């Protein structure tokens, strides 16, 4: 199942709809990296609310997506990780160190706005 990517203002929003196969995740990675370049997006939100498992592969892929997007000058926020999923992740030994996280899409957008403002203020100074 492919992940739809929505363009909203300067941001890209990818909403994962159901349990993803590894191939879908890799496709998402390629699509996001391409579109961030194409639209000169300032930020990307990946909504994982529908993900019922975040295993080592998913975590590694999300980390590498965030890394590539950073190299293209944009911010990534992962939002919607479920309490049970977070619990299993940390027990497995997985973290998303260095990547911003938010409770849900609304919070994710607020966080991106704040980040972008801070960055612009820093540049303007």
């Amino acid at each position, binding site marked *: 199942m492919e992940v739809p990517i929505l363009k909203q203002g300067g941001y890209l929003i990818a909403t994962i709809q159901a349990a993803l196969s590894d191939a879908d995740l890799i496709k998402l990675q390629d699509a996001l990296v391409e579109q961030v370049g194409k639209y000169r997006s300032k930020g990307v939100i990946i909504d994982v609310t529908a993900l019922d498992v975040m295993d080592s592969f998913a975590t590694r892929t999300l980390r590498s997506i965030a890394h590539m997007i950073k190299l293209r000058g944009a911010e990534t926020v992962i*939002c919607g*990780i*479920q*309490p*049970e*999923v*977070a*619990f299993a*992740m*940390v*027990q497995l030994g997985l*973290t*998303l160190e260095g990547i911003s*996280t*938010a*409770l849900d899409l609304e*919070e*994710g957008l607020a*966080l991106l706005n704040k980040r972008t403002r801070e960055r612009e203020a820093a540049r303007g100074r």
Partner: protein
Amino acid sequence: MAKKEDNRITSDTDQNVPSESIGELLRQLVAHLRQNRTQLRQEWARRITQAKLLTAMSQDEIFAEATTIYDNYVEALESGTFEALQGYARNLSERIIPRGVETQEVIGIVLLLRDVLARSLFAKYQHDFALLNRILDAYEPAANSIANTVAVGFVQERERTITQQQEAIRELSTPVLQVRERLLILPIIGVIDPQRARQLTEQLLRGIRTNRAKVVVIDITGVAAMDSNVANHLVQTVEASRLLGATVIVTGLSPEIAQTLVTIGVDLTKMNTVGDLQGGIEEAEKLLGYKVILVSDTTAQA
């Protein structure tokens, strides 16, 4: 009772050398109590009801308990050892505490028994004040230690029950408190084992989601010790909360626990720690964008 006091004083000044040993006196006493068992038990039960003690129990129950206490009481007087009585007191407490019987009621019934027995000794030895006094002198300290044993047994049992209840309550409802919008406090008190740590984490994570919390203050001032296993859970809780988008501030970290964390490889500089809960809440409010107004500021403005 005033009469008894008077008699005793005159007897002490008599300088009469007692002809019997205390053991012998107690034996006489015990024989008397055994002989009049039925009547004295009834009298005691009647006085308990009259004094409105043990109202949580039925007449029959009071009589049944009175019988057992009476027999144990007499046995303690005879043997001078209180183990059996102590055991019974604890057992009795265990049964009656859940029914709401209070400490003063238990002390009350034991004192009543002391009184009932003393009165019967009066009646029996009235004719011989010297002997009565010696009997009472032997009886008093024994009766007092018995009363003491029963009362202490009850109080200890009550304390144990309360501690158990508190523990059970604590386990059932780990308080995740919302002090203001988007700010949760998780005060951890007592002993944490891995099982409880897991419960705490699950509850906190669910709490973050339902309250849409952005900042969580975990206060571990009330945690005496933490082994590396539990310390690992704490670190996992901090990380899992962050995965949900919440920032965790840990307060009340004792030097011992800080050392445990360092030992298991936690980089404390990466952990958000603040000395005490108050400071933690202030820090949380700063993170949430609330202005913390110092008292000196407001007074300067006023």
